[in-house]
């Protein structure tokens, strides 16, 4: 009972535009995340985030010298994403790495990922600048 009330209040709080500037979030983030209470949404956000090592935060890949444009998943068309992933999964589409991921996912998960990435804004990603190692580091 108390938890339910707390949840409702929290969602109201998230939906309130007043807090946006304080929390430094975009309107899209608030709308997407306020709905993230279902299990499938929780499942999708962690699964989608685990793609970040190659595809960037929320599908915004660092593409460096343009060689890697295909890695950008943010804003990708749902049907295109699903077609490619199902092709990797059943082996009809050639892959270097992606077949090892696609085969491990269910069709439901592939659809969830397609929906998730299609809703992400393609913001681009920063190529991180390295720096000199300091003398006192281990």
């Amino acid at each position: 009972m108390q938890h339910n009330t707390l949840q409702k209040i929290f969602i109201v709080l998230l939906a309130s535009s007043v807090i946006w500037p304080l929390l430094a979030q975009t309107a899209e983030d608030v709308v997407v995340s306020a709905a993230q209470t279902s299990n499938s949404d929780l499942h999708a956000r962690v699964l989608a985030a685990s793609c970040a090592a190659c595809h960037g935060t929320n599908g915004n890949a660092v593409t460096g010298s343009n060689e890697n444009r295909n890695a950008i998943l943010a804003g990708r068309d749902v049907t295109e994403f699903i077609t490619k992933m199902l092709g990797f999964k059943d082996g009809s589409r050639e892959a270097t790495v992606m077949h090892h991921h696609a085969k491990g996912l269910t069709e439901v998960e592939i659809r969830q990922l397609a929906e998730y990435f299609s809703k992400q804004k393609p913001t681009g990603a920063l190529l991180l600048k390295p720096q000199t190692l300091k003398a006192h580091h281990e």
Partner: protein
Amino acid sequence: MNKNTTMNRRDFIKVGAATGVLLANPAFSMGRKPPLGRVVIVGGGYAGTTAAKYIRMWSLGAVEVVVVEKSSQFVSCPMSNLVLGGSKTIDDLTFSYDLVQKNHGIKWAQDEVTAINTQAKKVIMKRGELNYDRLIVAPGIDFNYEALPNLMAEDAQQQIPHAWKAGWQTVNLRKQLEQMPDGGVFVMTIPKAPYRCPPGPYERVCQVASYFKAQKPASKVIVLDANAEVISKKGLFLKAWAELYPNIVEYRPNNALVSVDVATKTVVTEADKVKADVLNVIPPQKAGRIAQLANLVEPDYPWCEVDFLTYESKIIPNVHVIGDSVSSGLPKSAHMATSQARVCASAIVELMKGQSPDPAPVFANTCYSFIDDKHAMHVANVYRYDAPKKIMVPAEGGGVSAKASAQEGVYALAWAQNIWADVLT
């Protein structure tokens, strides 16, 4: 820090929701407790920093996050073998924490933890202390020198570097390789699994051999492996050694280290006695110091047991463990550390909202190894929660590259750039 909070959490949310405007008051962001409480994260490596960012993102800033990390810079272990090969420098792998802190409003204490009081939910540091609602411990690995007492001294580790935490140790080993005359012998010892980065030692063999082949072709690489065989990407590594470095690499399995003579750089194993010109002992490993300090390990097993839905410790409630310290039976890799961090972050946000975490998390791991300066190969897997067994298990369909390639070398560098950007911005 929260002494001036006069309302409890629930009252504060109620007032905030009713009036809306109260939240625009700067006091909210300055001194008051955020509505969902505070998470303290000890350790700013791949796991800890990722957890910090994603808790802030997924809670929409409603959970306060404080990271305690003693180093002022992030130095990547992935790619650090390339420093030994000579195609990267340590400065290519060293980054600031500034962006991730600023972009996500993460509070940061550059400090060293001296004690953790899990009863009082308090972290004690050299220069202060922090209360937490939930604690994440992400301390990476520590070396287990019990069987190798003469390698415990700092001076011994300078003469015989481990180079298994990237930084000056990596630079030291590279310098020793540069100073070694042609015709010298590089000896590396590999501990019994589990250890950080299963393919790492074998990639290191390739990198050192690649350097020798180009610069010191009469030199040798002798690998003394405590394991019965190459434990990751076996076929691909054996092929690389046979085809690229046939007169350089000598691999000896079932060769566990027994003792080391520091002055003469001589190692005695169960099967051999070998004198090295440059000696690299990768020591046996255990959960990081903080995990030991907080009693998150059982006396007879050096890794932390957790609930794989939340990464909460099986020993101490409200304390979560992520990254290489976790006992999961799965590879201790940077990508796994970030994947665990996100499951943990997602679960903590839901728990703090009074909701349930995902009952069946799934995540991916991709790990590249370079066989020279340009060609790389991968092992990739999806991991899925097995509810009856309560562990993460590999899903069907994972595997390794058909062969190492220049294309995968490009992918491997893109992997590094993306995981760095994900963790640090």
